[in-house]
């Protein structure tokens, strides 16, 4: 493998900013300490959260809703 050549290819096609960003960001293991967007901490700090914070956490995603319609979704899953 020739990293120099590879890096040049990336610079030419995808851009160094994107590559550096990807490598910097995809390693960001969630930290369950102070981020209200992480549901993993709900059970630990739920009592100290404001009502608004609780609402935001709940809004991350809903429980699955059974319904057989086809015309009003933003997106649908596809086979893969």
């Amino acid at each position, binding site marked *: 493998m020739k*990293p120099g050549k590879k890096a040049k290819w990336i610079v030419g096609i995808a851009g160094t900013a*994107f590559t550096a*960003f990807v490598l910097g960001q995809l390693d960001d293991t969630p930290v369950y300490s102070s981020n209200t967007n992480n549901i993993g901490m709900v059970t630990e700090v739920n009592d100290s959260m404001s009502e608004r914070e609780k609402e935001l956490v709940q809004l991350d*995603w809903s429980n*699955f809703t*059974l319904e057989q319609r086809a015309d009003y979704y933003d997106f649908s*899953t596809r*086979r*893969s």
Partner: protein
Amino acid sequence: MISLLEDHNNAEMESLQLNIMNTTFRINIENHNGIEWKGEVISFLEYINQEFSRFRKNNELWRFNEAKRNQTIRVSPILYDMLKKAEEYRQKTGGRFSPYMLIPLESHGYSRSFPFVSAKHEESAIHYQYENNPLVFKGDFQITKNTDQKVDLGGIAKGYAVEAAAKWLKQHTGSKYGIVDGGGDMAIWSDGQKTWKIGIKNPFDESRTIGSFSIQNAGIATSNIVYRSWMQGNRKKHHLLDGRNGMPVETDIVQATVVMEHCIDAEVGAKVCFMSKDDSIDSILSNISKKFSYVLVKSDGNIITGGNKTYGRVY
């Protein structure tokens, strides 16, 4: 080879749709800052497609697979990162998910891109052995191969690309809300202004859905053994191999959808649902992500959901 299907902007949302990585990517983002993003996203997906497809020769994955046992190879930072993550998922799932499935996949007849209906060769003995440390990760992007097995990134590359593109778009454009959908593996974000309603397709009738999740920030992925299946002699085979033995999983699940905080986690999670007994799915998924929801569709039409334990029927 990619084809651009749609390049559309309106006052609220900018969208891009293209065929790449043997599937269709659809990206919709709010872009109030008007920052250009499509060219770089297309280039990034093209790069992943070019360098990490197992169906191409002379790309980086092919060169890595050609390296002999005990050889130390210096790879690109992205391949290093993907392999490291794949190995971490293998550990977290007790070996169920495995990136070392290329030789078994080809032995089972999956040696070319879908669609195809039958394998080119008859069934042969599967020479696969579970190994504890197939790859040793060292500094400066060097990896020592302690295995004769070859790597297939098909189980992780799409989720990786979706996750990377979504994170870049959020940071680069300051987008308030958006979605990156790579063949059904989706990364979704929102500042609270928009809630995305994601329908889950009926595996027996894709014109219908069985239900939905409402999502503001999460990853969602669906895996299905109805579509990617083929005949090898008289035996039906499919693409989901159990990393513990290299064999197609035997299960009554036909479709698994998993929601987790990150799309790449959900992609792995959806696959390992097929390799777990019903009562161990929660335990396996919790090793991948602390928060998860899932919907399983069984071959008899029954639906099992994780979390609130509601049950229903598809038909």
